[in-house]
């Protein structure tokens, strides 16, 4: 029995108790999110820097499961400047997708909740705090000011509606003054924009008639339909071949400049990040371990996890006998240790690593890392 407890098994009684406690917390948060007759002032806020499209400050997103609270995003802060691309890298389960879903307010409710923190979205003349917004308010923002391109184009299009109808829907919803003909014209325009040659034909097709690359183009067209300020691309090319991936990345890059919006690119492929991103955020177990410009991160990676990630990826043209692999595995998300989460897998540990989770150390104005190895250097200088 004791053996089982150690490995994270829970008795039914314990599980029920946790479930009851969770319900108390989530029902309060849920009620707040579902509130009606809100006034805009409730979530009006100011940007720290008006050149940023999005500012995320100390975001905490928890999942209240029957096994305990999973801190998927645990104090994440970063900026997305207007017209730039921010890449978020990390293993699966590190919280990169949950961060983006929090921004979109698309979390799996009621278990998933934004517990605290701010997400400020710049709308030009004003700014909204998405973490405090309610359901109706979020609906108005989604699609118009921020939109998302999902990982699997196969499953994210509705198989029973024609392509044209699915794109029309977004445009018509956010532009009620447009006539049906105008909407259709705009849809065809969008399809041409994302490089679909036979746009009139594709307008009448069903998703199953298109290839993976074409479907991802449709997803991009839907995401760009209202020229949003922020495009979140969640692993947009993972399901695609290299040649198609090159085409899609090319489209994303040119279109971003055309409508002057920002991209938040989530991927685990460091090659894609290097090619697309201006700024890079590396996440591990719900926290940011390193952030900086793409040049800084790739030229001088500081955190052992970033270094490990880069070494474990085979690179064309550089043959090694044995690939580096990060030892161990990600800690259990329910019972996180109180020291650095990466310590158990780290090969560069120093004495201080037994202490609390390290704070950010600035290596340059833009390059920050959370690792004790740099504490000494800083004090010495």
């Amino acid at each position: 029995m004791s053996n089982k407890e150690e490995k994270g098994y829970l008795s039914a009684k314990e599980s029920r108790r946790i479930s009851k406690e969770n319900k108390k917390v989530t029902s309060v948060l849920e009620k707040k999110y579902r509130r009606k007759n809100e006034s805009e002032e409730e979530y009006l806020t100011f940007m720290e820097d008006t050149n940023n499209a999005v500012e995320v400050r100390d975001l905490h997103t928890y999942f209240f499961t029957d096994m305990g609270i999973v801190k998927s995003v645990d104090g994440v802060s970063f900026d997305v400047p207007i017209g730039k691309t921010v890449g978020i890298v990390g293993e699966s389960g590190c919280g990169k997708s949950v961060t983006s879903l929090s921004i979109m307010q698309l979390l799996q409710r009621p278990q998933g909740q934004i517990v605290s923190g701010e997400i400020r979205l710049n709308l030009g003349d004003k700014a909204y705090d998405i973490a405090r917004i309610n359901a109706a308010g979020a609906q108005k923002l989604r699609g118009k000011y921020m939109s998302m391109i999902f990982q699997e184009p196969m499953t994210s299009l509705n198989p029973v509606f024609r392509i044209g109808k699915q794109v029309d829907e977004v445009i018509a919803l956010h532009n009620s003054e447009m006539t049906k003909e105008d909407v259709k014209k705009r849809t065809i325009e969008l399809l041409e924009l994302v490089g679909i040659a036979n746009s009139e034909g594709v307008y009448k097709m069903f998703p199953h008639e298109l290839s993976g690359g074409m479907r991802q183009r449709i997803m991009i067209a839907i995401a760009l339909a209202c020229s949003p300020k922020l495009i979140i691309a969640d692993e947009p090319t993972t399901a695609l071949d290299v040649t198609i991936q090159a085409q899609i990345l090319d489209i994303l890059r040119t279109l971003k400049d055309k409508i002057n919006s920002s991209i938040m690119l989530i991927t685990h492929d460091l090659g894609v990040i290097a090619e697309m991103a201006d700024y890079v955020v590396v996440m591990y177990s719900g926290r940011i371990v390193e952030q900086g410009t793409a040049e800084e991160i790739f030229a001088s990676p500081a955190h052992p996890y970033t270094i490990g990630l880069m070494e474990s990826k085979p690179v064309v043209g550089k043959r090694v006998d044995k690939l580096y692999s990060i030892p161990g595995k990600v800690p259990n998300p329910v019972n996180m240790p109180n020291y650095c989460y990466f310590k158990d897998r780290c090969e560069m540990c120093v004495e201080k690593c037994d202490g609390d989770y390290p704070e950010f150390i600035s290596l340059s104005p833009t390059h920050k890392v959370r690792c004790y190895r740099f504490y000494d250097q800083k004090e010495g200088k």
Partner: protein
Amino acid sequence: MDENKKLEKAKRLFIDTSFTPVEYDPQYILMVNNLKKYFPIKDGLFASTVGYVKAVDGITFNIKRGTTMGLVGESGCGKTTTGRTILRLSGEKTAGQVLFNGEEVYDKSPAEMRKLRTKMQIVFQDPFSSLSPRLPVGEIIGEAVKEHGIVTKREYNDYIDDIMDKCGLQPFHKYRYPHEFSGGQRQRICIARSLALNPEFVVCDEPVSALDVSIQAQIINLLKDLQDHFKLTYLFISHDLSVVEHISDVVGVMYLGNLVEYGKTEDIFKNPAHPYTKALFSAIPVPDPKAKMNRIILEGSIPSPANPPSGCKFHTRCPYATDRCKEEVPVQKEIETGHFVTCHLFDK
């Protein structure tokens, strides 16, 4: 008699089954000669055959003992079908030869085939769907061992422990079920399952594409260690070129059912000859933001294998296509020792 019937049927359906048979060369464990695999398209009231999807359309290559051949290409180009056809896992072949240790795989009787199955194994792409959720891991690995009588009953438990240990699994994992494992661990179970039969040849069908980068490295290292230990020969199918470069000795590039280029890994990666290989390599994202991008972006996507373009199948997307490419089918040519290209550009 049987052979004649087959030929007659093929003629009726306008399939070219002619090929020149090859002689067995003992240095090669596997010889594939002009292998074809067509899947019929059925339509109409009586489900008559109206055409064929030419998944594998005449490919030729040999694999030496103890080496790894990588097979790359876009999805839908027939990589997986090639692997499965070699193992006789997708019905009858349409034409060609598959010589495993000098013996034609498709001439075996069911009983002989059963025996041969222990010698050639496969590791599937998706570790989440290729393990039975109702069997504990020990059973999954041991089922075939019991069935084929690889070891005696007394040695059985030790044997399973030994295999699991070599694949990086703990003995207590034996009593657990697949859902209790992570993706990387599951892929280890899949590898243990195929190695438990003492195979000589293993087809690895995209074994790492469903895994995270850091786990990918672990599995690739494991595959390499096991190759040294058991003297295995791999056919490594993947669309990730960097992984293929890392693990293979010989690389084949496939496009729409054909092997367009085939040669030593160094030759292919340093000196790609076929326009498709060049485009494929230039599309790999390099993890260096300062790297110059001289990208050849291919227009459009891969044509339908049911209705492939005439002549060279690549001519619709090829930047160097000429009128000749539209009409004449290119043949495989050796441009340097062991480096074969199927392209008109290299005709003298």
